């Protein structure tokens, strides 16, 4: 087996007496990319990560059989994962008063919770308040990229210029042509798998070998083709051919563990920030990483109002430190970066850093999800079982609403993620009625004969959708927490109805019997695609950042994560986060060389 087994770089001594060229807060997709670009241009960079550096392969154990785990994958007693019901009927902070020793977000769910217990934050230590929100946070090196869903999509000018298209919200200060070269760079540096479809609204990437479709998926693809619609193999942020320039990552071997657990790949064929970006950046000698470092304020120079560094606590010792740098780059996640800006109050910046517009924390948006359909492919009932899940994902049906048409009930659109075929656990078992011999045979005969898909829809950014600091509640380190003021609106609800009705039509048109529909909209936050709390724009009065994710107010402050997004699109954001971070950091490095920073 030609698996890559290169140990991660050793932890380094951190010299806080010196002034770094840049300090990056956060080590996920955005922070990792900032580190990659800046260190490859020769800048000396310090990265602060609030969580631990985990022995991630031991956490993920991708190929462990359920029966080799004492609880078949579940976390030990005393650990609790929040359920949809709890998110719905209670209010945050959800762990308040809980009898459990540890409380985690819903991720992990059914027999996977033991693999994420050190990756997700304990809700008891990290409360938040306000409206219902399923906030999923991963505090460890690499953040959520350790367990992400891998769907790697580009945005198009239907997204960047959405206001020009339908009049709602704001256009981005950039167009697809500005970002396209950076999408290409991300594709080639990290690897992406997929099939070219030549769609103006979902541009193709520089794909490696695609995963294949199975019988039911081909059937649906061919049916959709008749009406000009597209079902394409999952565009996965996975290297299927391997990456010669990266010694920390193996190519994909189709082991099929990807959907069995909350995600994660212990051979790193799936992109994750540590092996994809951070370790190679450390190998340049220009990156120093300090884990266990909880940033709580961006420090500013009293005279100039410019950023001069970051104040942080060591999570183990609780000691306070300052990291000094010529440039501060926030990449702590959409919500944590907004929190950090709001926490950084000073006489020059009384409403929080970079917040002269009053837009920090506002225009918060994401994806609405939950609605979906399940169909039964009769031809497959009773057929021999095949290997169908040896791939990083099933299929994707790109947006088709409000491109040329105008829907009466809602603006913008949604795409479906789905799959068909066999999996290790026959998910239909609880929907199979009865018991005994006929029950057992029905489960066996129907295994692999289902196709299901669920939609991800664009949530409109609204000024009133926002987060601010709770005046009273603090986290385990004494830092004020976020308070949510955020709820789906009529546009999302109308869109959700269409997701179910249209999914049903698609399956029926393909001759697939619809055996289940889900019209339940999951709690706000469920998609883990939070965006837009420090949006880019050309007007400093209505935006926080310029087109290079640079603060309008504080030129040596950048926010390179999803908070910069002007609208949510319906395409999953990770690849765009990295393309934008690459573009901004290249610009920053150019300016740095010219002495403009």
């Amino acid at each position: 087996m030609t698996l890559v087994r290169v140990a991660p770089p050793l932890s380094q001594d951190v010299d806080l007496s010196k002034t770094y060229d840049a300090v990056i807060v956060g080590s996920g997709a955005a922070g990792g990319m900032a580190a990659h670009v800046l260190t490859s241009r020769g800048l000396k960079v310090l990265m602060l990560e609030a969580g631990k550096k985990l022995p991630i392969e031991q956490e993920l154990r991708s190929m462990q059989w359920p029966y080799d785990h004492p609880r078949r994958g579940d976390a030990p007693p005393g650990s609790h994962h929040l359920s949809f019901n709890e998110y719905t009927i209670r209010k945050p902070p959800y762990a308040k008063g809980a009898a459990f020793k540890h409380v985690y977000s819903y991720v992990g769910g059914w027999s996977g919770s033991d693999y994420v217990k050190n990756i997700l934050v304990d809700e008891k230590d990290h409360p938040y308040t306000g409206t219902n929100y399923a906030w999923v946070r991963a505090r460890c090196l690499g953040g959520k990229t350790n367990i992400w869903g891998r769907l790697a999509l580009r945005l198009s000018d239907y997204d960047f210029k959405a206001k020009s298209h339908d009049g709602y919200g704001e256009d981005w200060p950039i167009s697809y042509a500005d970002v396209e070269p950076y999408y290409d760079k991300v594709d080639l540096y990290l690897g992406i798998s997929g099939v070219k479809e030549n769609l103006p609204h979902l541009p193709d990437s520089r794909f490696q070998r695609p995963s294949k479709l199975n019988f039911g998926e081909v059937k649906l693809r061919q049916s959709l083709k008749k009406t000009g619609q597209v079902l394409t193999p999952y565009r996965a942020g996975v290297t299927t051919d391997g990456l010669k320039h990266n010694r920390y990552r193996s190519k994909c071997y189709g082991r099929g563990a990807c959907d069995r657990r909350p995600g994660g790949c212990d051979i790193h064929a799936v992109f994750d920030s540590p092996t994809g970006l951070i370790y190679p950046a450390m190998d340049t000698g220009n990156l120093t990483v300090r884990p266990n470092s909880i940033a709580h304020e961006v420090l500013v120079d009293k005279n100039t109002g410019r950023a001069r560094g970051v104040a942080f606590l060591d999570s183990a010792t609780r000691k306070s430190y300052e990291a000094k740098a010529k440039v501060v780059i926030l990449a702590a996640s959409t919500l944590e970066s907004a929190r950090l800006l709001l926490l950084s109050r000073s006489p020059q910046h009384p409403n929080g850093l970079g917040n002269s517009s009053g837009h920090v924390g506002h225009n918060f948006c994401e994806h609405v999800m939950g609605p979906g359909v399940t169909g039964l492919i009769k031809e497959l009932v009773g057929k021999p079982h095949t290997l169908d899940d040896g791939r990083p994902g099933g299929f994707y049906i790109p947006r088709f609403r409000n491109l040329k048409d105008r829907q009466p009930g809602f603006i913008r659109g949604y795409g479906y993620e789905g799959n068909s075929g066999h999996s290790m656990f026959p998910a239909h078992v609880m929907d199979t009625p009865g018991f005994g011999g006929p029950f057992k045979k029905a489960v066996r005969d129907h295994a692999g004969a289902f196709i299901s898909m669920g939609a991800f829809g664009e949530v409109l950014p609204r000024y009133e959708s926002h987060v601010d600091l709770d005046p009273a509640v603090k986290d385990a380190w004494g830092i004020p927490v976020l308070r949510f003021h955020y709820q789906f609106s009529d546009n999302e609800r109308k869109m959700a109805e269409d997701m179910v009705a249209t999914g049903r039509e698609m399956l029926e048109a393909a001759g697939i019997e619809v055996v289940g529909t889900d019209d339940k909209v999951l709690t706000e936050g469920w998609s883990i695609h939070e965006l837009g709390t420090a949006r880019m724009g050309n007007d400093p009065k209505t935006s926080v950042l310029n087109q290079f994710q640079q603060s309008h107010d504080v030129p040596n402050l950048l926010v390179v994560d999803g908070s910069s997004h002007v609208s949510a699109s319906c395409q999953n954001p990770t690849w765009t986060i990295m393309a934008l971070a690459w573009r901004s950091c290249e610009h920053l490095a150019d300016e740095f060389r010219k002495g403009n920073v």
Partner: protein
Amino acid sequence: MTVTRREMLAATAAALAAPLVSPGAAGAARAAQAASVAPKFFTAPEFALLDQLSELIIPTDEHSPGARAAGVAAYIDGRLAESLEPDWQASWRAGLAAVDGLSRERHRKPFLEATPDQQVALLTELAAQDGFFGELKSWTVRGYYTSKIGIHVDQEYKGNVYQRGEFAGYDAT
């Protein structure tokens, strides 16, 4: 490692030889035997009842061994034994007691002493109600389809292996 269906069948030949629905008392005796270690949470009679109920839900058939051979009762017993949720533990005791209670009401004998037909009829009655049956079935399928027998023999799952070359499936185009 991969266990082929053939290997697994050979290993569980004894279980396969069992009749589709074990007769009451004999079944209970076998169950007690099967639980080579004493149950950690349930009493021996409770464990025997659970073992029989799980086997009724997922019985051995000509294709694959059932819940008894897959050790489903021991799995559920283990989870309950280490649980820190007294309400959940109590609900299982009460649920099993109610199964016996219904049997006594209908047939004046405990569930395990009822005939196979009576047991199926009792479980059918319980399945029609909201309550313990759902929990029982949920944990039985959870235990069974995550077991070696469930994954490899019954479902003949082929994944969780390193694939070489082209993966299974069809090209999109």
